[in-house]
């Protein structure tokens, strides 16, 4: 982690709970920091594949930059953007802390 990034522990249960309540929209300042860190500090970002508009999505990863492959991840299907956001939040939490979120 670059020295300029503050070292406050952001992996706090209350922030996970806040995100689970409101995966999309207005977030508290610390949750914003946590989300920005989770989303930008990864080599290949989680993205969705839309299989049916507004109804059905799957998970994939893709590196930043032109022509990088979209690599499907797992076989889970999501019926809402909120469900998918929570799943990616859990995956990133696990990847960054080693800890499973229930």
């Amino acid at each position: 982690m670059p020295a300029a990034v503050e070292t406050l522990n952001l992996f706090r249960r209350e922030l996970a709970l806040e995100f689970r309540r409101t995966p999309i929209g207005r977030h508290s300042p610390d949750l914003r920091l946590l989300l920005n860190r989770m989303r930008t500090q990864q080599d290949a970002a989680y993205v969705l594949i839309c299989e049916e508009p507004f109804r059905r999505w799957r998970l994939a990863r893709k590196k930043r930059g032109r022509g990088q492959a979209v690599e499907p991840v797992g076989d889970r299907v999501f019926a809402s953007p909120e469900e998918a956001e929570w799943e990616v939040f859990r995956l990133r939490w696990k990847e960054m802390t080693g800890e499973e979120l229930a």
Partner: protein
Amino acid sequence: MTPALPRKRMVGYADRISVAPGETIRFMASCEGVARYRAALVRILSGDRHPQGTPFAEEVVPSAADGTYAGRLQVVRAGSFAHVDGAPFAGLRSFTLQAMLWPTAPGRGRQVVMGCRDEAAGTGYALVLDAAGAAALEIGGRSISAGVPLLERAWAFVAATYDAATGRARVVYESQAVYPGMALKGEAEAALPPPAPAAAPFTLAAAFAGTEHGRPLGAAFFNGKIDIPRVADTALDRAAMETLRRPAPAPARHLVAAWDFARAMGTDRIEDAGPHRRHGRLVNLPTRAMKGHNWTGETFAWPQAPEQYGAIHFHDDDVYDAGWLPDLSLALPDDLPSGAYALRMTAEDDGEVERIPFFVRPPRGRATAEVAFLAPTASYMAYANERAGIDGGGYLHAFANHLLAYGPEDLWLNAHAEVGLSHYDHHSDGSGVAYSSRLRPILNLRPGVTNCWIGAAGTAPWQYNADLPLLDWARQQGIACDVITDEDLHHEGLALLAPYKAIMTGSHPEYWSKAMYDALQAYLARGGRLMYLGGNGFYWRVAFHPELPGVIELRRTEDGIRDWVAEGGEYYHAFTGEYGGMWSRMGRPIHALAGIGMAAQGFDVSSYYRRTAASHDPAHAWVFEGVAGDIVGDFGTVGGGAAGLEVDRYDPAQGSPPHAVVLASSEMHSDTYFPPPDEVHNMSALLDGRQNPRVRADMVLFPTPNGGAVFSVGSISWIGSLTWNGCANSVSRVTANVLRRFLDPRPLVED
């Protein structure tokens, strides 16, 4: 087992975006593994896929297009270069090739600077940058290299000579930049066999790779600027080379060609100032009016010193006209009503559908309704095949504050960058995309396709799809509405608008040519009425090409939200010589035109408007007739509210008319909403939408002279709320109240 990714096997484009009844439009398509498809002309009634919007709907219009067609694969050939046909280049025995270069990707593969080289046969000769980025001379299958890679983005002199009498070849590199301790020059000399004549034209910035449908193809593209390219018919010594470096070299005995890229600037032609006048053609529109090696830094406008702007910047991913063979030509029925249409292609094997959209305008010279929707096709072109969401990675997840989602169109774009870029993208060498064309498949200009990064999980429409609900709404309200486009307005001016009592904009009419802007201002001054139903409109100046159809130019200058930044000294359009950038910096504040101007953008959730006390004044209360309470638009298909994505604010200090009344303002925007750089003159932790009262949309109304009027909502997501709940909602009601009042010729106020 991992499921297969959604595929798209058919893509196409049309030669026109706006067509009058009775006129002909041609469609070009590429089919990958689709043997046959059915074609039909369809009218697009609703492009919405949102569960609470009008379900997707189209109507088949019987036409001469009806039938089945053979599918065939057609490919976009990206990469710009110049070609010069005719003698004497292929027959040169001894020669000198020299130029000034500003390479932007040296070392990224072999790149041909100029020569007469048949890439497939390996015959002929060329001055190139070799795989290491060093100047090299290739003759047949042999080459010699100066050995020292050129510096990226630093001007350098390069030359190659061949003396047929001695068989000696020589290559020279000298950097114009000097860094003590760095050896920024190189030279090599060797014996090489003479070149066998190549069956190729002379080319610059690529090797010749044959032809396709009569069009020359390039290979081994050069990325960067080329300035003062010269050809001589003898092996010049270093001093003689120097005499040819002047922008206008004196007629020298051995001079064969001296292209002057500062001439014919606004065209796709290059002119040869040498004795043979071997003028050439540019393919795929490389960027012109670029600072040359001799730019002094004292002149910033190329029309005032074209000799300092003799460089052309070539890119291996430039695209102008895909040049595909037409699949079908359709003469539109004479009585076809104005509206949004498409050619629908349906694959016979699995039913996959591709729609190639266009607009039908009313018959030339007349209006068929009292109100017109001005389809912002210049803005559609600016965003054509925008790649931010496809290439942006996790940064975009943070920026948008929700996951991206790729549909078949996005996945196709990811696999086919050669289809060309938008004004929001960078070329492969990192430079900005200054030209955008519609003569190629545009995957985000398709009914029913949402943007992959705007709206949660890519569910928000953008531009074309964000505008279609306005036509759907007008139809459901029983309001006859013509469709006219930016291109029509650019070419026809005020005469196009004059017959209409009111003009409605789209959700994001951001890009305006001078002719378009002049026409709209004249319309309003003469009593016309404008409903600006979008956000961040009238922002950037663009130039349509004066000769070539379907292409615009943008210079991202000075300020504003700039996904790339034009270089200092390159602020003037090559197409027209006009200054580029933001209209508000050119004596035409958006606020003066529309009453409001760009205040903020954010891409997660939208918000709502709250009525002001002034809106209850009986003079304006008619706007809200039938609306209960003070909240307007707390619902919608775009981010869940009518105030969102990009919002505009009333600001007298920036030119908002003092007599404009603010009827409602949005509030409660999220912390992803920020003002644009032109609103921010110092940094602060108070800028975001949760803390910054300047982050808001203001709805305004004001009269213009001679009975005219402007109503502006200042929000991209407004149109996305119109058809909510079957059009029974406050946004629909306000829009209808204003439109009906605008169709009534009585002035808003007595003069």
